[in-house]
């Protein structure tokens, strides 16, 4: 399936099924509603194959370029059919399963994501482990009949809605740093898991604290090799920074469109509008070339830190612009549309913090792209 045909046929299918696909919720969906909508869209799009293109056949896909997945997310986002955050999870976690899970486990589990049966989450960060991921301490201990996991994760997105999770655990000594980490695939309803959603400044309980108290995980649920979980974590980045970023960029494009359509004449200056449009354009251009490299089979690496800096910069600039153009809505509006602008504005403050902070990205750029040697 080539991209042009896919684009044409998908657009046509979306037009014809608009009514069934449309969300039941209003402009400010709850998290539950957002996830129900993503699952519904996936379920409807699975049968005709739309969610299967771009994934390998051995996990229930129909093969083809990852550009097909990128376009699917774009088309759904431009039609306001899915929210980007719950939608993009699959782009990050399915490739991890494909690359690292035992083949029969991947073949069993990935179709559940493609069909919209399940949501998954990703347990990396810990209270003592933010930017320094290699210092994580949630421990997995070997027993006769499998792993026992003890410890705490934090900032686990959608843990409360997730059926399963990819978890990074400490299996070596604490000093072994990135050499003693093992990735596990965990059922989130396992006994011993306690999930506590965090209330954040943008009023959405998307992030959770997750406590693991003697949680049993079978050995067959090990992703990659024991003590080689760092490779799993690193493998994930190129996926997050290709299709997933493209979807988020599409969403930002859509929001700038809405802002232009909503704002009172004279509320915004031409220069500030032009600059945000240029930043979004720059992100799209960068992201498109990253996607094309991914599709061509080129390895993606440290250069995607530039993509991350660009999208974070564009996202914050866009919502700063929204705050300039819609001050009454963002500061004092209590209708749903205003609340939406407000929560998005506040969420955008985190864009330079999550997924590797702005400082970490610049460290990577300095070390790996500019070859400036070790920092002191």
């Amino acid at each position, binding site marked *: 399936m080539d*991209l042009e045909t896919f684009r044409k046929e998908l657009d046509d299918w979306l037009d014809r099924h608009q009514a069934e696909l449309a969300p039941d919720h209003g402009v400010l969906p709850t998290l539950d509603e957002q996830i129900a909508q993503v699952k519904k869209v996936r379920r409807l799009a699975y049968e005709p194959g739309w969610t299967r293109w771009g994934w390998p056949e051995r996990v229930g896909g129909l093969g083809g370029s990852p*550009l097909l997945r*990128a*376009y699917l997310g*774009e088309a759904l986002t*431009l039609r306001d059919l899915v929210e980007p955050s719950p939608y993009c999870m699959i782009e990050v976690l399915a490739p991890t399963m494909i690359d690292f899970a035992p083949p029969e486990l991947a073949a069993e589990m990935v179709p559940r994501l493609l069909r919209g049966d399940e949501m998954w989450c990703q347990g990396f960060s810990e209270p003592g482990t933010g930017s320094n991921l290699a210092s994580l301490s949630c421990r997995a201990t070997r027993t006769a009949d499998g792993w026992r996991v003890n410890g705490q994760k934090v900032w686990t997105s959608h843990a409360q809605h997730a059926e399963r999770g990819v978890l990074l655990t400490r299996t070596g000594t604490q000093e072994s740093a990135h050499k003693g980490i093992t990735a596990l695939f965990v059922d989130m309803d396992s006994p011993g898991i306690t999930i506590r959603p965090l209330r954040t400044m943008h009023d959405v309980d998307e992030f959770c604290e997750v406590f693991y108290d003697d949680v049993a995980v079978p050995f067959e649920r090990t992703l990659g090799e024991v003590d080689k979980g760092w490779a799993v974590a690193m493998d994930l980045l190129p996926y997050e920074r290709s299709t997933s970023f*493209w979807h988020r960029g*599409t969403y930002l*494009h859509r929001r*700038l*469109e809405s802002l*232009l*359509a909503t704002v009172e*004449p004279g509320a*915004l*200056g*031409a*220069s*500030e*509008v*032009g*600059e945000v*449009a*240029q930043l979004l*354009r*720059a992100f*799209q*251009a*960068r992201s*498109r*070339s990253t*996607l094309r490299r991914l599709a061509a089979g080129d390895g993606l690496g440290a250069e995607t830190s*530039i993509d991350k*800096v*660009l999208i974070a910069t564009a996202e914050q600039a866009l919502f700063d612009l929204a705050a300039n153009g819609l001050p009454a809505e963002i500061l004092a509006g209590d209708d749903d549309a205003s609340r939406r602008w407000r929560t998005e504005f506040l969420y955008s403050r985190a864009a330079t913090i999550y997924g590797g902070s702005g*400082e970490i*990205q*610049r*460290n990577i*750029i*300095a*070390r790996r*792209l*500019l070859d*400036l*040697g*070790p*920092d*002191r």
Partner: protein
Amino acid sequence: MDQSDIELFERSIRQATERSSGEALDAALAEVGWLDALSLDPHVAVSTLFSQQGSAHVTSSALDWLLTSVLGLEHDPALAVVLPSLGSWDAPAQVGTGISVRGLGTAALRRAERAVVVLKPGDDGSCGVLTVETTDLQLRSVEGMDPDFGLVEVAAASGALDHAPRETTDRWATAVMMAQLALSHELVGAARAMLRLAREHALERIQFGQPIAGFQAVRHRLAETLVAIETADSVLAAAWDDSSRDLAATSKALAGRGAKTAARHCQQVLAGIGFTAEHHFHRYYKRILILDQLFGSARALTENLGRELLATRRLPQLLAL
């Protein structure tokens, strides 16, 4: 051109720009066959030459040759093109009671016998174009910020050119696009050169017992510089891929702004040595200030884009995957 042709061409252009500037570079470009390359593969010809020209801090008549070619005129080394005024991309001449001109020229115009003058578009959107004797124009060789660039101020009082035969062209917008792409490459090339200078300095300069490249404050400035450069370069590549006027204008804005960002960070990293006349930094800095103003400054292009978006309340479509 196939890959090996491109590599050979790039090598020749690099050698030419490393060894010569001005008229000598024009001669070298003629020998390399840059004009043939331009008709064969404009993307390769323009991107290779102008990024090298920016990086090596040299000048040539290539912008004039490029514009002549896009305007559909016969190549002629004695012919130069009158450019828009500082900051602007409007055609430099207008028709009032007679034709008047306010514009600029590159060093090529100082040597030229004839000049191409494009008139602002009429109601049908097409522009008038005249070829005039340079003696009919008032030319002032500019010393200014960057004497090496060889800028010329061009004027013609109303009526002075009315005798010249006038044709029409619908290619001014394309000429603007190509000039913006060329100048964006030159700006990106110059910004990369500034980054190269600052990076080398950061690795060699020892303070507090270690290279200053080890300090995060320095590293982050250089990282920021690379982000600014790659931002402009990404849009530039997309502008060629999609052959889009809008993207060319955006790339010019981002290249102009990005080069200034690069200069700010690199100068700070270079510190004292970068403030001396002996160090190369200041030459690049002064050059990018001029290049930013040709065929639309970052400021003017950004404001223009914003005005259009606010007027139409619509965004252009997402880039096609």
